[in-house]
């Protein structure tokens, strides 16, 4: 897995958002947000939970959620131990709820933020049939809601270690947008447990050139390391 590809791909998805926030255990989304901010000429606001330097909240742990409800956060990142083809995410456990086979930490803010932040980017490096499943065992947060349910937010894309999917809200399914270098439409099909739309021609996710890699390395060293000290070594950036 080439972390720079993911960082660049996510930064493109962030685009020209006004305010991007990243949550716990999100070094790659954080690096991507830093890159997107640089591309905005510094106009983009980035809030990194767990950072002092990149966090201007002063109203306690609830401020992220209030801020999202106020419509002041455009982009947030969520993940899932399982993600299914309807964009439901499971952060809680595998098997029966009362007696799970595997228990994860819990749903954090997902049942709320997935509903309220306009553009949620799903991110999970592991891309296999255990992670991307036909149906999650537990819906920490649903991928879509009935029209009468208040939901200004929801998914826009799913980025994995192998590819980028767009979320097609009207069709309630993912669509393959691009495969990372080394992957093919067929290798994605093999590794994915849910059905999704696939274009006739599947583009390859752009691979950063040396200059962009240097830029990312610089951002990681100067910003990401504050929050994730071991990230640079771990991902060989």
């Amino acid at each position, binding site marked *: 897995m080439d972390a720079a590809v993911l960082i660049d791909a996510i930064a493109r998805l962030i685009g020209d958002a006004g305010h991007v926030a990243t949550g*716990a*255990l999100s070094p790659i989304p954080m690096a991507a947000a830093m890159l997107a901010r640089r591309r905005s000429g510094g106009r983009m606001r980035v809030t990194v939970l*767990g950072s002092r330097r990149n966090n201007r*909240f*002063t*109203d*306690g*742990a*609830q401020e992220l*959620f209030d801020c999202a*409800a106020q419509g002041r956060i455009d982009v947030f990142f969520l993940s899932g131990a399982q993600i299914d083809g309807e964009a439901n995410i499971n*952060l*809680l*456990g595998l098997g029966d*709820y*009362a*007696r*799970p*086979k*595997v*228990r*994860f*930490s*819990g*749903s*954090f*803010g*997902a*049942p*709320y*933020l*997935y*509903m*309220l932040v306009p553009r949620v980017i799903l991110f999970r490096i592991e891309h296999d049939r255990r992670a991307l499943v036909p149906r999650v065992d*537990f*819906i*920490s*947060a*649903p991928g879509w*809601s009935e029209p*009468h*349910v*208040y939901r200004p937010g929801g998914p826009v894309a799913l980025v994995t270690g192998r590819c980028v999917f767009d979320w097609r809200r009207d069709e309630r399914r993912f669509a393959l947008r691009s495969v990372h270098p080394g992957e093919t439409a067929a290798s994605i099909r093999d590794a994915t447990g849910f059905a999704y739309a696939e274009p006739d021609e599947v583009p390859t996710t752009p691979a950063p050139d040396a200059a962009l890699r240097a830029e990312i390395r610089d951002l990681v060293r100067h910003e990401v390391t504050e929050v*994730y000290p*071991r990230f640079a070594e771990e991902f060989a950036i």
Partner: protein
Amino acid sequence: MTESLSLPDLVARIPDGAMLVVPPEYSGVAVAATRTLLRRGVRGLHVLAAPTSGIQTDMLIAAGCVATVEAAAITLGEFGTAPAFNAAVRAGTIRMLDSTCPAIHAALNAAEKGLPFIPLRGLIGSDVLRHRADWKVTQNPFADAPDPIVLLPALYPDIALFHAAAADREGNVWIGRRRELAVMAHAARRTLVTVERVLDTCFFDREELVAGALPALYVDAVAIAERGAWPLGLDEEYAPAAPALARYAAGTLFPQNQLAGAA
């Protein structure tokens, strides 16, 4: 008046069966007090993580002190899942009330404001909601069109317990931007705080410090516990002790052996 107590006397204020609200790992966790508490053999705690917890709750579970956990997540962060918590949920030996961060914040806000309940957006369609018999979905009474919304009952903890850098001579506690600690203290019937030190000053004498002070009005007792959050960190004071946390995450489920005597 805020009392000054020894660490054992402070944790003696936490009775068996209490609903104990504790902060997330980044926000001043009273680990030393927790070790003292589990050595005392407290039983039947209802631990409310506001809104997440880690090693603190895991230690209490491992020592058999916990009947119920309410949390948005119990996690050791980058060190992985909490081993005793994980085992207890799989074995069904604790009652788990799965929640979500803003629901815990909102239910504590409700208690802080004396509201019996508070609405919250989101949540509809989540299995977290489906498993919470104590939450209700109602029609927004101010909407003409169908608009379901969740109502949460207020959470009134018996005790709030956390660790901070300093108290002043009046018992005001420095919390800085960690305002979630103020919400906990407002909501709880009693608030117990361990601190690195007690300063012979008053935060209210320096106006630029006032906004970061939790007034003594909400602080029932303070005990000094140097490095009281260790092996977790404390803002501006010390960083988390990664090796100790990694050992905990990888180690036995009996933290008495591992941490109780380590400070």
